[in-house]
């Protein structure tokens, strides 16, 4: 299994380097394809940043914003992803996603860290409270202290973990013809045209349409015209 994993990683790395070489040669389409292939082997923030750069050079503003957002989702400490997002939003004149306080808190750490933190801290607190009793160890003050700290960390990480869940409903417009419609049909009245890269929040879905909330109102948009932060 280790050998298979190493093989996959090596294949992903090769495609990544192919993409870097193509990008350096000014061949942005092949570069984007190579980075997409690398992502199929191995999801990594660096690959997402590079794919965004290649998409941007190819004029795919929505896709570029989406993958940089995904890079920041995986690794909020990735400076390149953050800076590119700021630059691209400014250039494309699109809004920032509106985040609640707990969603804002969830951006401080990589998406999965909060969940790991909540899980580990909960079981650590439970272990420190129960295991000394089971094993008839002498109760020590540090047991109580660490258990209280772990419980505190668990409670504090619940809200960001919920924020991660709700942020997974955020999507980015990737189709330049995307339109916000009154009803979930092709013939429905168009409420507004959606600019590329505009963030949306999925509220519910029906068939091929999503009922979304944007900063300019709510309506239905075709599923294929948007990309989710965490694809389903």
């Amino acid at each position, binding site marked *: 299994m280790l050998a298979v994993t190493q093989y996959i990683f090596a294949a*992903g*790395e090769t495609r*990544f380097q192919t993409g*870097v070489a193509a*990008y*350096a040669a000014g061949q942005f389409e092949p570069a984007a394809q190579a980075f997409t292939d*690398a992502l199929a082997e*191995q*999801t*990594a*923030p*660096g*690959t997402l*940043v*590079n794919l965004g*750069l290649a998409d*941007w050079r190819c*004029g795919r503003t929505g896709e570029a914003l989406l993958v940089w957002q995904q890079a920041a*989702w*995986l*690794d909020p400490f*990735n*400076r*390149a*992803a953050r*800076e*590119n997002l*700021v*630059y*691209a939003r*400014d*250039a494309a*004149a699109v809004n920032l996603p509106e985040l609640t306080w707990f969603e804002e808190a969830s951006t401080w750490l*990589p*998406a*999965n860290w909060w*969940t*790991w933190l909540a*899980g580990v801290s909960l*079981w650590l607190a*439970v*272990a420190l409270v*129960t*295991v000394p*009793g*089971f094993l008839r160890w002498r109760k020590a003050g540090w047991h109580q202290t660490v258990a209280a700290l772990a419980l505190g960390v668990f409670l504090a990480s619940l809200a960001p*973990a919920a924020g*991660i*869940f709700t942020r*997974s409903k955020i999507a980015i417009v990737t189709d*330049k*013809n995307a339109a916000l419609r009154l009803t979930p049909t*092709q*013939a429905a009245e*168009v409420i507004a*045209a959606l600019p590329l890269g505009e963030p949306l929040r999925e509220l519910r879905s029906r068939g091929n349409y999503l009922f979304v909330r944007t900063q300019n109102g709510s309506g239905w948009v075709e599923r294929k015209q948007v990309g989710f*932060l*965490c*694809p*389903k």
Partner: protein
Amino acid sequence: MRLKIFILLLLASARPSPPAHAQMLVNPSAEQLMQIVRSQPAVDIAAPVTATASFDPPQVRPGEKAVYRVVFNATAVSVNLPKIIPAPPGLQIRLNCSGQTMQPVGGEYQNFATFDYDVRAAAPGEFTMPEFSAEIYGKPVAIPAAQLVVKTDLPEPHEPARQLLVEPSATNVFVGEVFNVSVLLPATAAGAVEGVSDIQLNGDGFVVDKNSVRQSIRAVVTAGRNSTAYIFEASLTPIAAGKVNLSAQGFTAGMNFGGPISITGHLTIPGGPPKMILLDSEPVAINVRPLPGERELPGFLGAVGNYACDPPSLATNVLKVGEPVQLSIVIHGPNNLSRVNPPLPPRADGWQIFPAERGGISGGAKGPGASFKYTLIPLTTAVSTTPALPFSCFDPVGGKYIDLTIPSLPVTVLADAMQTNVDAALMLAENTAEADQKTGLSQLASSPGWSAGGLVPLQLRGWFPLMQILPALGFGGLWWWDRRRRFLEAHPEIVRRREARRALRRERRWLEQAAASGDATRFVRHAISALQIASAPHYPATPRALVCGDVLQILTAAERAGNSSDLVRRFFAAADAAAFANRAESQTALLAEQNALREILQKLEARL
């Protein structure tokens, strides 16, 4: 009543327009709003639902289209028609369109839903659509029978089924290219023209510009003959590429035009209340081509058409640092100017540029033009021209993008020695810092970075919640183990008996092996040991400490009175004799007592 209008250009409205101030209340109160609601006629939804069915026209020629029309006094969404209606053999029928309208009935409004089926018969005959039922508001409603006569020879003048006609100004367009569509309702054979209300253009991937809607009645040539027709015109913008079927539907509305209308020519408009008959059109195929993406120019914001820009004008060419100045541009185009997006303000060193403000549409020598105003603030004296505003459009006739970039204009920026504009100074500082941060995109990442399992968060992956069961099971197991341990500590006899049972089974196994090999000495030794082990937990005592009397105490009175007691004594006596008197021969005879010993041991084991 019939109304004659002779060569007249008329701009009329169907309903008298009250004064403007009465049309809209400025910030009406809740009570005023309630009064408006109360003043409207009530909508009758309690009336019993009935259905009518008819063929339009009732007589047609073979292969000619007729419309089978079913009308309910209910909302369209409440009607649940059978998917396959019971058509007689030889009659081809398919649902074509449906619509809903509201009509006054006895001082109240009622909803009427109409379903139009396209009907054709290949051969002459009389066809009767039988009575069938539909479900409305969850209850069955009977639809009466209707008859269609198909004859080769029909008396003249024969009027075919009335239909709307859709005439697009173009059938091969680009995405975003505005084109006009006319929906015509030609006059009847008797020359009567009536309006059409609730016109709906059916087709995927279009945006209808409702501000562009016009209606008129004028002479047209349809099917090679001159006639008069009601014409509804609207501008459409395709928003998706591909082949699209465009059709129209609407209700005949008599002389209710619902808005301004231009009437030209000699015509007859039927008076009286309108009949509100749902009509539809044959679909027209529109080929929508995608824009060529590879040759797109900078500043393309979706403007498709023959656009042009006037030279920009600046309020003044001599500025001071921090002093705002207005840059005006005018974009001329064929139509749809209200939808044209102005050029995005570029990021330019030394300038702060605010997004354009729409200034309205005005006429001119070059045709109508949409004006936009940008506010620019020079942040330094180093700038000598305004930044160019990248803008381009796609010319659908030439099939290429056209660069319409708004050129730079020369300016002279003077320093403000007094630093009176503190805001400008602050903005300059902020902008410089911001510019340092946002000089552009990052460099390529040199390595993919750490690998993540995927973008889906852990809590949404199936294995993660399941994995949480493992520590829960571990802690549950620990808890159960601790509870069991405490219980056994409180009840040591359970442990003793369990250990005795285990040791007894072992001794019995060795006992059987000794008996099978005929080793009497081993047999007796294991028999004594088994008896001691089986009796020890009852005292409790160490098994080896028990003597024959102790074992006999464990036997019941009946067993003591029987052979069991004797057998136990013999085993202990034989063992004692072998141990203390060196007489092993008495042990050999005991091999024959294997079955009796087994019974005793089974009884003792059962008491553990």
